[in-house]
């Protein structure tokens, strides 16, 4: 077995759809690429079926305005799940993402309020996000603390700072540019969605096409092996948390574009849907397995279902039940697929060994 094949099998979407993962292509000739896509994106068939069923059962589901609404709803969460995916891939978790979005939005809004400059506002959001990410990364990598504890403490502290700065009030009167662009469409797509998707795609490419991405997968799946390969796992963890923080800053700015206001509670309701989307998409909570495309699919499924339930008149508590049940199901599906992959991988190894033994036997017979 090639040393990196195990890694290939664990990836998704952007990373490796070439069929290298083997057995599917070998066992069902012709369907390999399709099966591989479904294997890498377990939620894709569910999304396809859901869209098909909902477009026939819900009046106006496929209308342009409804699809635009779904996209707008996805805009902030796409960026937040991207950061969360990176952190989970490396075996961590970021509970402070929502609070970071809240504080970054508040600081960005303050800066824009006083300078009337969206650019300075964006920079303030990025700086606050980076600061929070750096502190998280430092605590996890240098401090050797549990990511859950570090980011939980950060969530409480950052949220409190947000309240201290604003007294709980939301901040409005943002520059007109921010408000206008928040309502703008580009080729029929809401600009905020285009931004969210662009960030997710960019980070997906970084994850799949760069050495940095390779390192994250390896360090997440087997930190000891990564360290033996010369990767500084601690440094990598710091970098990943830092990037997740910066992404929270971007999400904060997009949040302000979408709502036209900033509030310390901006991300309070984002944490669970973010983790839900990542888990539902099939990224493992234990690290090393998953990808951004998977998380996008998880977020998309949640957004589609929430919007459909909204149209049907279901209240948010009904929606929470559906998301909760789906997350549990998605997690179970992910675990089952993981076990299947491990089994297939072992079987392939045995077959390989068997072929090797047989080949060696022939070779021995020939020489004898």
């Amino acid at each position, binding site marked *: 077995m090639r040393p990196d094949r195990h890694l290939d099998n664990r990836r998704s979407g952007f990373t490796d759809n070439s069929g290298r993962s083997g057995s599917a292509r070998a066992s069902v000739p012709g369907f390999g690429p399709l099966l591989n896509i479904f294997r890498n994106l377990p939620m894709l068939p569910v999304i396809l079926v859901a869209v098909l069923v909902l477009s026939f059962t819900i009046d*106006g589901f496929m*209308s342009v*305005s*409804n699809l635009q*609404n779904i996209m*707008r*709803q996805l805009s*902030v969460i796409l960026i937040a799940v991207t950061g969360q995916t990176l952190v989970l891939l490396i075996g961590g978790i970021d509970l402070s993402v929502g609070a970071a979005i809240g504080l970054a939005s508040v600081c960005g809004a303050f800066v824009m309020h006083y300078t009337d400059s969206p650019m300075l506002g964006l920079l303030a959001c990025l700086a606050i996000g980076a600061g929070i990410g750096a502190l998280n990364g430092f605590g996890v990598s240098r401090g050797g603390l549990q990511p859950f504890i570090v980011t939980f403490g950060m969530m409480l502290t950052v949220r409190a700072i947000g309240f201290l700065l*604003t*007294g*709980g*009030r*939301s*901040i*409005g*009167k943002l520059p007109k540019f921010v*408000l206008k662009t*928040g*309502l703008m469409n580009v080729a029929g797509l809401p600009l905020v969605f285009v931004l969210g998707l662009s960030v997710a795609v960019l980070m997906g490419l970084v994850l799949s096409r760069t050495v940095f991405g390779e390192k994250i997968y390896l360090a997440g799946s087997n930190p000891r092996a990564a360290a033996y390969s010369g990767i500084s796992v601690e440094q990598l963890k710091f970098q990943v948390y830092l990037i997740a923080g910066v992404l929270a800053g971007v999400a904060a700015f997009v*949040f302000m574009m*979408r*709502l*036209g*206001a*900033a*509030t310390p*509670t*901006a991300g*309070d*309701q*984002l944490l669970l849907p973010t983790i839900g989307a990542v888990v539902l998409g099939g990224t493992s909570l234990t690290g090393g397995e998953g990808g951004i495309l998977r998380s996008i699919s998880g977020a998309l499924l949640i957004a589609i279902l*929430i*919007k459909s339930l*909204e*149209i049907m*008149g279901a*209240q*948010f*508590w009904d929606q929470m039940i559906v998301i909760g049940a789906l997350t549990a199901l998605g997690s179970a599906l992910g675990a089952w697929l993981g076990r299947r992959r491990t089994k297939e991988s072992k079987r392939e190894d045995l077959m390989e060994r068997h072929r090797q033994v047989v080949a060696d036997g022939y070779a021995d017979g020939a020489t004898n």
Partner: protein
Amino acid sequence: MVAKKSQRLSIGLVAASLLTFAWATARAADLPGAGLTICLSLDKVNAFREGELKLWRKAAADLGVKLVEQVAGEDAQRQSSQVDTCIAQKVNGIVSIPWDNQAVLQDIERAHAANIPFATVDQAPADTSTVDAHIGGDPTSDGLHAGRQLVALVGDKPTTVVDLQGALSAVNGQERDKGFKAGIKGHANIKIVSEVPTEWHPEPVLGGMENALQAHPDLGAVFAATDGFLPPIWSALQKANRYAKVGDPNHVIVLSVDGDPQGCAAVKAGWADAGYATPIALMTRNSLQVIIDIVKDHKKIADKDRIQLIPGIEYTKDNLSTVADKVWGCSK
């Protein structure tokens, strides 16, 4: 013979049903809001909102309006998304209690871009010039009257007070607090010893009350920004052996705003001294009426009617028999 009778009976029943249906349809068509669908976007669910929702449903039935109800669960993003859904469903109007008074401005702009009138209730948007109508209570007046009531109750007696504030991010929270302080201003014998920001949640109330009672065992009065705080207030007073009815020397003066069922019961039973009932029956009905006026009658709402702030009704044990029908929590 029996078959004929049964046949006649069936025909009679069908005819009666058709007539009833036709009468009901004609009556519904006569109602001012017949054929209109109004989206109701609430910020959260609690006992107060449940009371409002009940009255909204009654008003909608009386006016012939179909209501599409959405609850945001204290999330500005969710509320925004729900407003988008209502716009996509091409409702005739939107009535909202916004969770975030700044974020709602974008919702209003999107609704107006789709030619859908937008009215807010209870919590005003940050800029009221953007909204077609705002109908709310008068939180400043409610707080002011509570302050004046306290002045009247204590006279010159030195009195320590706990001020249980609502959410300071919400206009109602800010203004009730401001009004109460204005009401006691100039009375040096009344001293606020603790201000507890609660975000409308009852949990900080218990802690705040316990701390205040520990530091000031002779606490004289409590001002609660909402009746939802009454259960933790009772709990803290019981623990400190200060839970006593009006007239008892051990009694702590309690004044609270809302007029919900527990507020009404507390004043009736003598545990609380006075309540300030928000006129939600009027608020809910007026909010639907304003949308009907705009959509059906193409009426331009006069500026003086566009912002309606209706002061609450002060009720005490003494006047309850005369004002009970105006206090929504006292009605059966």
